[in-house]
């Protein structure tokens, strides 16, 4: 069975400071990892996925299979980054079922 752990429920960071949201997973196969974000009064939406290896809104995330981690990082936080962030895992590329972590609420302090 797969599991996603986000150890921080709440995270506050000053504007301009670096941000790191932690995500660890357990799964014996080759997972696909995602970060989804929910801004205030908006729908849950995809932020980025590890296979794309791209930066979205300044955020990056690297899949570390040795540490089974997929931490989300941004070098300089902006106020509009305040949101709820969920790490999610898909067990294999043929089955698109997502297993979500419990989420981290990120607040950027002006």
């Amino acid at each position, binding site marked *: 069975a797969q599991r996603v752990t986000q150890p921080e429920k709440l995270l506050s960071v000053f504007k301009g400071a670096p941000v790191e949201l932690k995500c660890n997973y357990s799964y014996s196969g080759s997972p696909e990892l995602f970060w989804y974000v929910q801004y205030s009064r908006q729908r849950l939406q*995809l932020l980025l996925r590890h*296979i794309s290896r791209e930066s979205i809104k300044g955020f990056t995330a690297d899949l570390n299979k040795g540490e089974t981690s997929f931490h989300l990082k941004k070098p300089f936080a902006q106020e509009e980054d305040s949101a709820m962030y969920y790490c999610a895992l898909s067990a294999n590329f043929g*089955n*698109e*079922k*997502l*297993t*979500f*972590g419990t*989420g981290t609420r990120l607040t950027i302090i002006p």
Partner: protein
Amino acid sequence: EAGVAQSPRYKIIEKRQSVAFWCNPISGHATLYWYQQILGQGPKLLIQFQNNGVVDDSQLPKDRFSAERLKGVDSTLKIQPAKLEDSAVYLCASSSGLGRGGNEQFFGPGTRLTVL
């Protein structure tokens, strides 16, 4: 393109009553999901449809929950009878299932259910 639509947005019922939620996925999306999100937790998959067939319903409490996707488009999720612990946001999502990015899931606004 129009997003995933859900109705109602809010529902308050008493325990032991029945309730139904409706979802209209993005046009052309073959895969449809229903998630349950209890306050303070991440979304949990209840059921996944591929067209009008069930792919995964392993976490659906089948004694009280049912779902259908007739004609492979719209879907309804029903709870009968509701319990207090069913209070949650019910999210519908869809994906095209095509190509490398085909498993991006697009979420609806959710239905917030309160069971009293």
